[in-house]
């Protein structure tokens, strides 16, 4: 295996692989051309593929997604960047009402094979309007597939699956993971959407996590291992399709569940997971289901305040201890 690569590099690598494969793949977004994107996640694409395939746009999020949609309906496979996921709010109509609905509401006459990529999540001190984890916004919308990888190899493999998907995919790249490193993806690596990964096996309790909460859950699992608690960590990897089979299978063995989410509790994606477990997995449960989430406040700027409101290893550990001693 070659040297480790960063999650950030994996994004550009994942896109480049698909652009090499398929000339219908084109990119658009703000400052993604010569500048390589503000997070450098498009680095190298402009140099390799040129202005015919990598398009700088004005600050026009609606036009970016609307144009991507129109192009996807007419033979292209656009990969649109929305710089920060918070800005989904500026083009939400396209993500909520247009892109996901057009296939269905035309009785299947059109498909919309596009990817909307975005830098998601907190931890970098960017304040209330640049730090949100909004996978849960997308989850509420029928018609979107949702990818949120946690490792560089998954970024590459899921990017391949996303770009090849004939359905629209929202691809969440976590800002807090950009600098993290991992094994590179093998050639031709494709990770199908809808397959959770068991990031750590365990028998006493199941931790369900996504993107940046995966390392958080792993750290908590390590910590309680010292006390002889064996925690299984499931990285959901995608929210739609949602791999509940893996989650329910794990709980059937562990009987206990903690869900670790970056979004707030109310309206968070863990509510969907928890309610499926409270229904289909009811008989497996030997303890309450606990969700470790952000608080119901906008994200504050200062680290010390942010720590108070977002999920931390300590909070996950406390949840594990509560449930395992229940």
């Amino acid at each position, binding site marked *: 295996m070659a040297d480790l690569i960063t999650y950030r590099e994996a994004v550009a690598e994942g896109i480049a692989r698909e652009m090499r494969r398929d000339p219908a793949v084109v990119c658009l977004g703000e400052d993604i051309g010569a500048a390589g994107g503000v997070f450098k996640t498009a680095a190298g694409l402009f140099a390799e593929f040129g202005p015919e395939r990598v398009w700088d746009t004005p600050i026009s999020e609606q036009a970016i997604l609307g144009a*991507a949609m129109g192009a996807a309906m007419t033979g292209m496979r656009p990969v649109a960047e929305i710089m920060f996921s918070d800005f989904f709010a500026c083009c939400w109509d396209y993500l909520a009402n247009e892109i996901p609905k057009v296939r269905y509401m035309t009785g299947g006459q059109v498909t919309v094979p596009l990817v909307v990529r975005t830098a998601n999540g907190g931890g970098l001190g960017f304040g209330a309007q640049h730090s949100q984890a909004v996978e849960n916004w997308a989850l509420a919308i029928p018609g979107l597939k949702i990818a949120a990888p946690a490792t560089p190899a998954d970024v590459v493999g899921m990017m391949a699956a996303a770009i090849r998907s004939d359905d629209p995919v929202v691809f969440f790249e976590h800002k807090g993971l950009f600098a993290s490193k991992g094994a590179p993806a093998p050639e031709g690596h494709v990770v199908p959407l809808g397959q959770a990964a068991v990031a750590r096996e365990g028998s006493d309790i199941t931790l369900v996590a996504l993107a940046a909460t995966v390392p958080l859950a792993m750290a908590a699992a390590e910590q309680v291992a010292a006390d002889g608690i064996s925690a299984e960590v499931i990285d959901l990897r995608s929210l739609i399709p949602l791999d509940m089979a893996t989650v329910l299978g794990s709980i059937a063995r562990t009987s206990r569940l903690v869900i670790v989410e970056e979004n707030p509790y109310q309206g968070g994606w863990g509510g969907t997971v928890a309610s499926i477990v409270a229904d289909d997995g009811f008989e497996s449960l030997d303890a309450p289901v606990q969700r470790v989430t952000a608080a119901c406040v906008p994200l504050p700027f200062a680290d010390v305040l942010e720590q108070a409101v977002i999920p931390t290893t300590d909070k996950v550990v406390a949840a594990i201890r509560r449930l395992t001693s229940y």
Partner: protein
Amino acid sequence: MTVREEENAGTAPAIGRDELLTLYEQMEVIRRTEKAAHDLFLSGLVKGTTHLAAGHEAVAVGASAALQPGDYVFATYRGHHHAIARGAAPAECLAELMSKGTGLCKAKGGSMHLTKASAGMLGSYAIVGAHLPMAVGAAWSAKLRDSGEVAVAFFGDGATNIGAFHEALNLAAIWSLPVLFVCENNLYMEYTPIGAVTPVGRPAADRAPAYGLPAEVVDGNDVVLVAEAVARAAARARAGAGPTVLETLTYRHFGHSRTDPAKYRPAEELQQWLQRDPLNLARQRLTSAGVPEAALTAAADRAAAVVAAAVEEAKAAPPPDPEDAFTDMWADGGSAWRT
């Protein structure tokens, strides 16, 4: 993917007498379909809502006459005329309105979402302004594929005040895309006169300079003038000269939607516009060109027969299977979202 292979060559020829007769007949078909939709709504056979385009026929028919089969049209919730002008059969439109399984969109869309992708009618969108960026994207795609196609967005005067309008025109301008922005200015945004909410006299055309774009104001009730203006703009677009804004002046004969009696419109205004009925104008042009009255009557009769048959066909069509609510979701045919 919705790729079509037709050749797009040249611009529309000048409108000859025979062609004009055909366009007139198409307008008659649209007018009668709209009247049928209205009656079917009142009799409870059409549910939900309808936004009828009676009065706007010349815009749709004139524009379609100037377009190629491979071009892309994006319309609004007031889009029956565009669907029919692009080739949708009245029967499949009415079946859609009547919640029938044979409807254009299998009764999943309804009046506001008529779509006939195979004819380059890429949809009717019910969020004001949302489809303008889509048309820009289709034009971008045409440019990327060097296909010679153009994209057309039809929209109302009221749509010029929403953000998506601005973003679409700007992007189209800087990328110099083959897209036409065709405003159907019918003087009203629902129940409010457009002048009450827009500080310029021509809400679309007066704003084209803000994007460095050329604009034309066109008599939207004269099918020939519309066809000529669209042909010019489409030729420019195909020649790589970028987008054009066309503002067509027209008027709706019915209220905004459903049973709106449109009491907010002055009686004289309505009268004046009814006198400028696009069907009358076309008939006058045909008569001047020497087409005998009998030919006009025959065309109108054919249209009436088509629509009468369409109504019967749509009435007789079966409802959708409830299970079809779960098809057309994902591209692989499934609708599951979890395991």
